[in-house]
């Protein structure tokens, strides 16, 4: 097994008048997983990462199409397809699948992301081959029975009703509209009650036939299994899977013209006077996963808003006690994904924290991060990477992300050095062109009368939309004929 040195610089503060903590010893090396891979004759790529300390295996069948491919008036189709996928096949009812999987102590779930759909399995290694037959069966032979479809759709609509009454999740959905307008990433991933109502069973069947195919999929396994045994298992479960002749649209999202630059940044308030806390989000278009500046983005975000000691949490929680937590993230995707920074606070502090969020984006783009701050933020990023590789599901996540975005699996060996190579200059330049400036959108959801005026004082034009006038399907966010 190849080993790399995890060299984390010493970053202890000086505490002059006090007893200093004992210093660290020499670091030990981090073991990085070594994936093995093979492509089956039908085009299915199989990747295995053996790890034998616990008799457990995590597996994911990754279909390289997700919610970005939802047709214009069918928001939520990819997710609904994934949800109904496990609810019956040509030979097994939904109940038989659930009982069979759970009798093995396994968990099986299917979910859509923006660029992918994943069918995930976690199972003790002695039951892997039995459990894998269920993964293959639902991927290949799902029938999308009408009763199952209608029940899942009704429950998805109910779930949306719950989700969209809470400021925090609602703020994320509103922000996607502001950043992406009516482009593919602009809608809610799980759709809206009205779009789900339009979706038919036939839409699911078509989506499944077009995208769930071996030449558009990757099988990733990590855990207590040998590579050769995993390849043999993949062959027996998926070897007979044929791609249907009709090819799904290739890379749906990037094939559509995206004019994000034409969208004017907005400051939007959704008035929910009875909510218990305000949600505040600022956001803008971020980067593609394949962007050469990916590592710069990760380091910049580690300084800004990933982890307890990042700047946003320092300023908003630690220094001012204004929130339980504040943070930010890039979601790099096939196409340009969002950057968002978020927090929650009592209504009367909402305008103040919006100003703090935007202020930190600007500070990062205007002045260099001191080395004494940059080094620990890089160490935090590297540590998070190393921790994610300690579990089977964490390894599956890392490896399938590389596979999805067409990156070499050997990138896993370059992550640590990639982080370490980023300089303060890289971070400032990246932030200047990707974070700071006037292109940022702001969403605040809560009791508007407590923060709308101070928000206007800071940002100028502020659109206040009453909750009952909100239309998430429209880039304007307003139901037609709404009063201003």
């Amino acid at each position, binding site marked *: 097994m190849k080993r790399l040195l*995890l060299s984390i610089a010493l970053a202890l503060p000086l505490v002059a008048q006090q*007893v200093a903590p004992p210093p660290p010893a020499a670091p030990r090396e981090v073991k990085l997983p070594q994936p093995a891979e093979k492509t089956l004759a039908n085009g299915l790529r199989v990747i295995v990462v053996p790890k034998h300390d616990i008799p457990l295996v995590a597996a994911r069948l990754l279909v390289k199409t997700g919610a970005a491919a939802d047709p214009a008036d069918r928001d939520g189709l990819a997710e609904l397809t994934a949800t109904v996928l496990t609810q019956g096949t040509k030979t097994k009812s939904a109940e038989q699948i659930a009982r069979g999987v759970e009798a093995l102590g396994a968990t099986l779930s299917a979910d859509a992301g923006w660029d992918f759909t994943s069918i995930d399995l976690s199972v*003790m290694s002695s039951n892997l081959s039995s459990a894998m037959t269920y993964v293959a069966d639902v991927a290949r032979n799902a029938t999308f029975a009408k009763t199952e479809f209608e029940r899942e759709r009704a429950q998805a609509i109910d779930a949306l009703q*719950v989700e969209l009454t809470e400021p925090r999740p609602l703020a994320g959905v509103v922000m996607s509209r502001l950043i992406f307008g009516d482009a593919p990433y602009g809608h809610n991933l799980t759709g809206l009650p009205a779009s789900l109502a339009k979706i038919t069973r036939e839409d699911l069947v078509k989506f499944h036939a077009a995208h769930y195919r071996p030449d558009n999929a990757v099988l990733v396994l990590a855990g207590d299994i040998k590579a050769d045994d995993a390849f043999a298992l993949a062959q027996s479960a998926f070897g007979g899977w044929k791609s249907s002749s009709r090819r799904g649209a290739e890379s749906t999202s990037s094939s559509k013209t995206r004019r994000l630059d034409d969208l004017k940044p907005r400051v939007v308030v959704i008035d929910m006077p009875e909510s218990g806390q305000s949600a505040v989000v600022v956001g803008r278009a971020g980067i593609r996963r394949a962007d050469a500046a990916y590592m710069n983005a990760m380091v910049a975000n580690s300084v800004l808003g990933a*982890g307890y000691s990042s700047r946003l949490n320092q300023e908003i929680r630690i220094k001012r006690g*204004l929130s339980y937590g504040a943070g930010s993230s890039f979601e790099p995707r096939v196409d340009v994904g969002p950057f968002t920074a978020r927090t929650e606070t009592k209504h009367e502090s909402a305008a103040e924290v919006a100003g703090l969020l935007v202020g930190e984006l600007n500070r990062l783009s205007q002045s260099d991060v001191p080395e004494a701050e940059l080094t620990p933020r890089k160490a935090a990023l590297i540590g998070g990477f190393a*921790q994610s590789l300690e579990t089977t599901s964490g390894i599956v996540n890392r490896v399938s992300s590389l596979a999805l975005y067409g990156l070499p699996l050997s990138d896993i060996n370059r992550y640590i050095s990639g982080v370490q190579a980023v300089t303060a200059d890289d971070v400032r330049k990246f932030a200047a062109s990707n974070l700071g400036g006037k292109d940022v959108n702001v969403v605040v959801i809560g009791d508007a009368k407590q923060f709308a005026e101070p928000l206007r004082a800071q940002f100028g034009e502020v659109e206040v939309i009453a909750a009952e006038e909100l239309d998430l399907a429209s880039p304007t966010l307003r139901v037609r004929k709404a009063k201003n």
Partner: protein
Amino acid sequence: MRLARTLFLLLIASAASAATTTIPPIAFKYRVLPNGLEVYSVQDRSTPTVAIHVWYRVGSKHDPQGRSGFAHLFEHIMFKSTKNMPAEMMDRLTEDVGGFNNATTFDDSTAYYEVVPSNYLETLLWAEAERLGSLTVDDANFKSERDVVKEEFRFRILAPPYGKLFYAIDKNSFVAHPYKRPGIGSIEELDAATIDDVKAFHATFYRPDNAILLVAGDFEQQQLDGWVDKYFTPIAKPSTEIPNVNVEEPARKEEKRVDEYSANVPLPALAMTWLTPSARHEDAVPLFIASTVLADGESSRLQEKLVRGEIAQEVFSDANLREDLGLFAVVAIMGSEKKPADAEKLIRAELASMAEKPVSAAELEKAKNLILTSALRERETSNGKAFSLGEALILQHDAAFVNAGLAKVQAVTAADVQRVVKKYLIEGKPLVINYLDESAKGGAQ
């Protein structure tokens, strides 16, 4: 309720126990220092990281009178200054070097933990000894952190549509035992807390003979023992008594029904609870299995009847085993157009059927396999192993339960499950909470 210092909480599956022949046992070493500190260690050198936990036998049930939420507030304060550490130095020693830290306040205990590259083990042992030995928080830090906890209250209870339902469960389920006070507290009682309360709480409960040190992961045993001696042995054991919670919760004589209302409740919900014995009682493991049979997994009884049956949007069950007594709870969020009474009827029918007829061998086996696999997932990391040990120590008063609990799960029979369902969930009296939108007030629901 588990309350954590931060959102970036590593959630651990709540297993009452578990282990089996196919689960590698957790091989731990034990020693106790002259000052009463118990020390457990589990070596695993497969990755160069180590988890350091300190569990204190003080939890929300020890909140002082008129200070509900105090144990949790105090947990936050433990990240502020000590004699030799400025505020947030714990973050400098963990996050800044590629690790993380967090803390969780339970009903019966408070756990502080760090995972760091193993070359920082000595540093963190020093730091944990430091905050066990002294806490020197100033008033500004105290007030600012109290504001954070008030935001946490809004975040957990006021903002989510079902936050107030969960807040209502403990409050209404117990009449005498301090478990009845919500661990998150209330804005008023948090505001009443002072820095003197902090000092008194530390002096009363944060002492070596009320603490457990757990170290799991990459270390050399002799070196670890030496560092533990060096940093923890000098901490004196106070001569004062450690206050104990000795309140008997009376058995419920009759059913109790409560209607709770909140703004923005999109779908009504139902919660039912029953009192059960301590986690150490022989019926605890069968109750845990009963809960798994009821609602763990899509093919569980209540998922099939309520969710697949389109009565509820979501249902879950929790054996919620605690040190003094347990609280078995079933919660359902209704489907649209459905009423809590619809779910209540089906839940009662399912419990009656489990009391009448033993679960099938296949159903019992399924529940055991689900529990086993979830225990395996917890044991993937050193941090997870330390959590299993800590939970066993607090709830079972016995670290060996991390391994022996397996045998107990495997040994449970269908008759055991039938017996405990009948005894506690049929013959025991439920509390029923209907959770409704404010607009339903005064109307018929």
